[in-house]
């Protein structure tokens, strides 16, 4: 514990956040105890502390994320110099196992919610199915090999700053496209999968994260597409005629309420698709991490700077 607390300059008795659902004051020391239990090294502690602050913000709405019956939990993306300095994985098997920092930071955050906030499964955590990422879900963006600005830069920080972005997400779903050689084709292909995120009948109300792998990103690098161009082209393929997804359409009772007939709506609200570059250097795959209700009535992504 003494060594863990040396991982931060913050004093042990400093209050980090009120932890939902019980809204308990949580000190640096209490976070550190849980970080030890999770298997963190001391140098991970600043990331854990910042992630706890991020998910306990009003915007992230951890109480709702916990209490929902949907299969979601905090997905943590680390940007900036700290990712490499503490040995985080942004490459091969990035969303999987095998890296201590990735595995234990997310785990420590979940333990804080459970042990300190009292958010136990079957208690306030009402998830019908849950997902394996609720054990802990944390990874780093591969910034160095990306031709685009990073997620952190997109959200108002610069490359010299280390940040953690908390996104309320479900488990990752693979997108396979091994034949597209043009950015136009790959964009249509990614859009086709994104249109089914959460449900083909959910539009604008839920966000998503798209993790683009290096070989898919190469299509955009080679063609000179930047993030703005990609998102603009993608948006064109993410529009829905509401008549096609309204209650009763195609014999499916689920769908948009009848009052929304006759409109065109986007799959995602403006800024509702977070794009990250990560993964192994070989493999023509990307991944979609579906979100949960967004906006003031749900959860908004939160990015915080990591300080020592």
């Amino acid at each position, binding site marked *: 514990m003494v060594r863990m607390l040396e991982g931060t300059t913050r004093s042990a008795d400093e209050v980090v956040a009120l*932890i939902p*659902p*019980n809204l*308990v004051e949580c000190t640096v020391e209490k976070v550190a105890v849980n970080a030890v239990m999770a298997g963190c090294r001391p140098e991970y502690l600043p990331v854990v502390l910042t992630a706890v602050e991020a998910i306990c913000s009003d915007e992230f709405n951890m109480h709702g994320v916990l*209490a*929902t019956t949907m299969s979601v939990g905090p997905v943590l993306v680390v940007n900036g110099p700290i990712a490499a300095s503490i040995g985080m994985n942004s490459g091969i098997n990035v969303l999987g196992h095998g890296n201590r920092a990735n595995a234990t930071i997310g785990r420590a955050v979940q333990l804080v919610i459970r042990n300190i*906030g*009292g958010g136990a499964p079957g208690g306030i955590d009402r998830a019908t199915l849950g997902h394996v990422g609720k054990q802990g879900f944390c990874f780093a963006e591969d910034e160095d090999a990306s031709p685009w600005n990073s997620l952190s830069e997109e959200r108002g920080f610069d490359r010299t700053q280390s940040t953690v972005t908390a996104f309320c997400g479900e488990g990752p779903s693979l997108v396979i496209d091994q034949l597209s050689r043009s950015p136009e084709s790959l964009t249509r292909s990614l859009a086709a999968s994104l249109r089914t995120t959460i449900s083909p009948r959910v539009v604008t109300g839920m966000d998503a994260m798209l993790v683009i792998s290096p070989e898919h990103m190469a299509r955009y690098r080679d063609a000179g597409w930047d993030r703005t161009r990609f998102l603009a082209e993608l948006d064109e393929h993410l529009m829905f005629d509401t008549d096609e997804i309204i209650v009763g359409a195609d014999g499916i009772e689920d769908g948009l309420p009848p009052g929304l007939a006759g409109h065109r709506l986007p799959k995602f609200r403006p800024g509702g698709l977070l794009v990250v570059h990560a993964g192994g250097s070989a493999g023509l795959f990307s991944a979609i991490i579906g979100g949960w*209700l967004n906006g003031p009535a749900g959860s908004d992504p939160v990015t915080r700077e990591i300080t020592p």
Partner: protein
Amino acid sequence: MSNHQSTRTTVLDPTAEQRPAKRERTARPESLAGLTVGLLDISKPRGDVFLDRVEERLTALGAKVARYAKPTFTKPAPVDLRHEIAIQCDAVIEALAD
């Protein structure tokens, strides 16, 4: 191992070290006649369908019904709303629906 050195072990508690306060349950009313029952809609789709029917049944039993709704089902009921229900009602039923 014959050298018996004394060591001190400190066990740290990973929890909030809180224990819930125990309170007696409010006595259950023998009859709902004349009592005010609050119906809290958490604002999920079709919760109102369930609560409309509950209101009919309660009214038939002679209870007065007061309807309330959370602004959103994704967040806890605001403290003012909880206080309002507590001072205006003798009992409350909450609807979770979809």
